[in-house]
């Protein structure tokens, strides 16, 4: 039993219920104020955060917790910027030590130009983190075999990319995303690559459980407006997936009845 769809539209990750299928990042905003406005507009419940050094030279360094109340949002620490298993474990543990949860968005990058994952290292890190009791949501490429292995490793969600992080190219390979969703039992959350609302809508139409994005909102001209767009786009795509789209066909079919036309139509 796949058990992720529930009557009221909510879905489960690792036994926890979420109502919004949109997960958003918190990076790259012009200001924390804009960030919180955009995130509220998006309707997201889960928001990702990075673990970084406190800047001790700034008089009043403020972490993101000053702007995002953990009672309002479920904060999901990531291991962004890590290129090895060891680093990913270190950042994951630091994130967990903040005391919010034992969840982590695992990223182990394999190439700095494309930010594509090192899937071998990701698999290894996932297994180790699962053994340490983490709830691992693993960023990965769109390769089905790796996705299946991540599920086997005990990840609570698998997060294939739509296209490279920050690229905004959208779902380049919907076949692979669809196949990953078809074959996995844990939730599939598409992570990275969405550029605009229709990308989010297309993503959800593939049947996946959710979508994670950051740049598409933060780098829009009007981030709050785009966050609203994304909220609707994710709902639209999910609803369309559930409603079952018409078959496309190359032949036209009239919408109005052909019967009941009047006599004496001009020849």
């Amino acid at each position, binding site marked *: 039993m796949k058990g992720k769809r529930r009557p009221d539209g909510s879905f489960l990750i690792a036994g926890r219920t979420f109502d919004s299928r949109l997960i958003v*990042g918190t990076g790259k905003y012009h200001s924390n104020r804009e960030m919180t406005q955009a995130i509220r507009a998006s309707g997201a419940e889960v928001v990702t955060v990075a673990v970084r050094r406190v800047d001790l030279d700034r008089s009043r360094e403020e972490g*993101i917790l000053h702007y995002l109340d953990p009672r309002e949002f479920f904060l999901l620490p990531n291991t962004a910027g890590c290129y090895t298993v060891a680093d990913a474990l270190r950042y994951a543990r630091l994130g967990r030590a903040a005391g919010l949860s034992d969840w982590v968005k695992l990223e182990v990058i394999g190439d700095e130009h494309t930010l594509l994952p090192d899937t071998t290292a990701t698999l290894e890190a996932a297994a180790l983190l699962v053994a340490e009791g983490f709830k691992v949501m693993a960023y990965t490429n769109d390769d089905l075999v790796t996705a299946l292995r991540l599920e086997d490793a005990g990840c609570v969600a698998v997060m294939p990319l739509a296209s490279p992080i920050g690229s905004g190219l959208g779902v380049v390979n919907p076949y692979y995303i669809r196949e990953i969703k078809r074959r996995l039992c844990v939730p599939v959350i598409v992570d990275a690559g969405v550029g605009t609302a229709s990308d989010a809508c297309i993503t959800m139409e593939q049947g996946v459980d959710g979508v994670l994005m950051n740049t598409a909102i933060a780098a829009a001209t009007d981030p709050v407006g785009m966050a609203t767009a994304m909220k609707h786009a994710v709902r639209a795509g999910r609803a369309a997936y559930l409603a079952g789209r018409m078959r496309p066909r190359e032949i036209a079919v009239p919408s109005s009845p052909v019967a009941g036309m009047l006599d004496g139509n001009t020849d």
Partner: protein
Amino acid sequence: MTTEGDSATLSIVVNGKPRLVGAGLSVAGLLRTLKVNPGMVVVERNREILARDALETTPVKEGDRIEVVHFVGGG
């Protein structure tokens, strides 16, 4: 005396930068010196994460490499 002077100052590295701090300081004390709220950060000392309730009781020692981290915006 130099020994007293030596014992009174420790050379450590915090977030990648060398610092001299007075001897006898706890990690929590160090954070206060740095004007950092311990409730908002996680501290790693020589690659070991310190539990928050151990901050007051953990002394800063010569040569410690300390990392003070928190959550920032990320995707």
